[in-house]
């Protein structure tokens, strides 16, 4: 997939992928002219079905950006309206359009309200920010969360157009109950991302390559600033990604950097690169860092979330990794393909045995409570308070995973 020219050529801008293998996307060229209004040259595989709609979508965006006269060439392979709007916006802005209107497509999905601080975060599916085709049906695969990624999966030349795609996706794509996360770029570019993304009310922002608590605090502050002008008052959660030796050393401070931090996670590609060692199948080289992260997260009352498993074809390897990960204290991990979601949910689910044991402990606790006893007993064993707490958590999680009746 070739990418559109990003070189600023005043009066002319292009955006969107080109080539025979492009699907559900489009390439747009906007060239300003002196007169004659907006002239379209539209080549679309759905011209007969949606030709008028494509022109209408493009016109609305151009109008908002103050483009009155232009030649607009659209080579469309079936892009959905939110994609058309994003590509046209990127092309027009690259041409130098600076209108102050609102080019955003009409909102089609509403945010229900903030997600729970400690909601299930077993799986989070990575969706490259410049590949809208993958976003549309992502929710059908029932991940706990989706990550619209503006960082590593987006070519440096495409940061702007990915930003409009992700912003529009947050307005128009129904992720079917998945927590809507956005991974911004490394700071300071990430601050630009926040301006576009935060008004759309994502549930959570992932901050990459965090090494100091101040970085997190600043992101939190910026978000508050934007939300106070343009938002519904809901908080947006933060998940810092530790990807260096220094970041891991500072894990506990980072975990406490802001009230809105709900989880810590780790990026193993960069971390192993920082150590100067290869990343291996069983991950011995990152064992300490991952344990450190779990401990820091739990110390701050946060969830610890593991990295991704890179071999999509190897389900057995994924299951092994995920089981080990749960045993270490992680509560979830990333997915790079929808088929990884189900195995991960399986691996992070408590076993039937664990659930039954926990239920018995909870029942014993409730019985002790009702009898006004301070000591909880199960058979001949005395149950310590932390064991009761863990049993409560396990039963609650099992219920949220649908492993128990309500």
């Amino acid at each position, binding site marked *: 997939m070739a990418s559109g020219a990003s070189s600023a050529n005043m009066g002319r801008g292009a955006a969107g992928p080109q080539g025979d293998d492009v*699907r*559900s996307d489009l390439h747009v060229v906007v060239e300003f002219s002196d007169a004659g209004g907006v002239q379209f040259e539209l080549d679309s595989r759905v011209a*007969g*079905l949606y030709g008028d709609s494509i022109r209408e*979508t493009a016109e609305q965006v151009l109008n908002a950006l103050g483009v009155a006269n232009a030649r607009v060439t659209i080579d469309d*392979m*079936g892009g*959905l309206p939110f994609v058309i709007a994003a590509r046209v916006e990127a092309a027009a802005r690259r041409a130098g359009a600076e209108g102050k209107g609102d080019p955003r497509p009409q909102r089609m999905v509403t945010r229900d309200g903030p997600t729970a601080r400690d909601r299930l975060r077993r799986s989070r599916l990575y969706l490259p920010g410049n590949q809208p085709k993958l976003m549309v*049906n992502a929710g059908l695969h029932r991940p706990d969360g989706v990550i619209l990624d503006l960082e590593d999966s987006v070519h440096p030349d495409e940061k702007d157009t990915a930003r409009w795609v992700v912003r529009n996706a947050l307005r128009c794509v129904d992720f079917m109950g998945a927590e809507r996360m956005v991974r911004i770029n490394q700071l300071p570019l990430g601050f630009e991302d926040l301006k576009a993304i935060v008004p759309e009310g994502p549930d959570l922002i992932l901050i990459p390559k965090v090494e100091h608590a101040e970085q997190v605090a600043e992101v939190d502050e910026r978000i508050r600033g934007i939300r106070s002008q343009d938002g519904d008052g809901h908080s947006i959660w933060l998940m810092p990604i530790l990807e260096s030796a220094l970041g891991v050393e500072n894990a506990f401070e980072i975990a406490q950097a802001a009230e809105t931090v709900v989880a810590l996670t780790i990026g193993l590609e960069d971390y192993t690169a920082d150590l100067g060692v290869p990343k291996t199948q069983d991950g011995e080289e990152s064992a300490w860092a991952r344990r450190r992260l779990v401990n820091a997260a739990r110390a701050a009352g946060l969830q610890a979330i593991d990295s991704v498993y890179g071999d999509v074809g190897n389900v057995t390897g994924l299951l092994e990794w995920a089981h080990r990960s749960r045993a270490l204290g992680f509560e979830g991990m990333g997915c790079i393909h929808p088929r990884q979601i189900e195995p991960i949910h399986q691996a992070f689910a408590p076993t039937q045995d664990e659930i039954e044991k926990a239920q018995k402990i909870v029942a014993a606790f409730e019985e002790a409570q009702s009898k006004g006893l301070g000591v909880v007993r199960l058979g001949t064993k005395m149950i310590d308070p932390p064991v009761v707490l863990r049993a409560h958590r396990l039963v609650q999680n099992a219920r949220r995973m649908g492993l128990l009746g309500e």
Partner: protein
Amino acid sequence: MNRPIELIENAVGRRVPTVVNGKEQTPFQGPGSYGPRGFKRAPPIRSCRDYPANGDKRVPDLKTALQMCGLKDGMTISTHHHLRNGDEVALAMLNAAAELGATDLMWFPSASFPCHAPVIDLMDQGVVHHIEGSMNGPLGRYCSEGKMRGMGVLRSHGGRWQAIQDGEVNIDIAVIAAPTADPFGNANGSHGPSACGSLGFALADSVYADYVIVVTDNLVPFPAIPWQIQGNNVDIVVEIDSIGDPSKIVSGTTQLTKSPDRLLVAEYVARFYKDAGIMRDGFSFQAGAGGIALAFVDFLKEQMKEAGVKARFVRGGSTQYLVDLMNEGLTDYILDGQTFDLAAVESIASDARHVPTSPFTSYNYHGKGNFASMVDAVVLGATEVDVNFNANVNTHSDGVLLHGIGGWQNCLFSGCTILALPSFRDRIPVLVDEVTTITGPGELIDVIVCERGISINPLRTDLLDAVKGSDLPIRPIAEIKDEVEVLMGGPPAKPALSDNPVAVIKWVDGTVLDTVWQVEE
């Protein structure tokens, strides 16, 4: 077309021509309603004294063969598609006819492929008048644009047999490409460098055509075993260098889909088999070689192992996946209509449990029953499905004819017909208010499975009852259609079609189900 074409509305509310290529037509009356009487067509009487006593029917080349068959203008010449996109025989034969100066031929293929696009030139030159058979890709577009002189007639594999048997189509010369043949005309598709598996599509032609020519690139001394085509029906044998490109005849391997959405569809279908009680010991099913169908077989296989059940028979479109199923003891037989990959070709040649079938055994309306209705469930695709469960496999939403029917219509008679498809492709909705062309009436289509859920035809209260309590996403079809429409940014515009019919879609009984209209350029 000079004289105006009279149109009549049929039982599914579609306007269809009353006369097609000079022949009176019966409009579709509803599934199972039409029962013609009388006698089947018979080929002309021939006697063994007219053929060489030593059994050697060889002639030097195609032209000589055509001349010996009395090639004349306006004749009907048939070919078959078991060599798929690798076939070189159909074009060679039509070109030979052109060199002999023949014009106005009717080409009657069991299906055409993109490799047959040069037939467009022969139509432009007047050699071929029109095509009755599937028209894929460029040929379909040619027909859609109203450039063919006659009207296209699309039939299912079973419908082709029906039309031959009840005399609707008289084949003057049948040309059978044979991967292996002997000088007597015995032929098979299971052996030889161009092996393709079964020759079932050519069987009717070998029995009913006035003349039968077998063309082979692998001549063996009598007897060619097995004789899928019997030499006793064959007039002439021609040996040529190559009947086709083996790499396009069968793919080396068939590929599972990698698309997560399609895998989800396949998984839903497999789970539906289980939850609806279709998957039980001794059951049967049919699945083709499409990406979703292959993935479905893979999911079903795991479920069958887990449940400890096995199938009595599986109908193919056979592939490595079905062969594995049989070799792992999960089905007793493969009843094979078409062989798609090398593993399946090898299996059909060497394993007696892997049985070649024909449209006669499987699909023919004029048979005393057929296998299609004995299969417990089939998984099929479609280009469009509407809220009344009508489905289209022939045209795209822009009205252009791009695909044949194949065995698709015939398979609708199974115990449970499942269409497995994406709810949209890019920005083309697959679930719509009304299909562009009806290839299959909704009353025969039981279940639609897409990535957004599973819709069961309200007529199938038994299936609705069977899946009560299942955690599958069972949803009304209109609800999914609405959801897709919102995603697409509204309902699609209707294609601009003229009032000029360019092809008809036949139902399995020979009646006219729908019309393909010329597209506006």
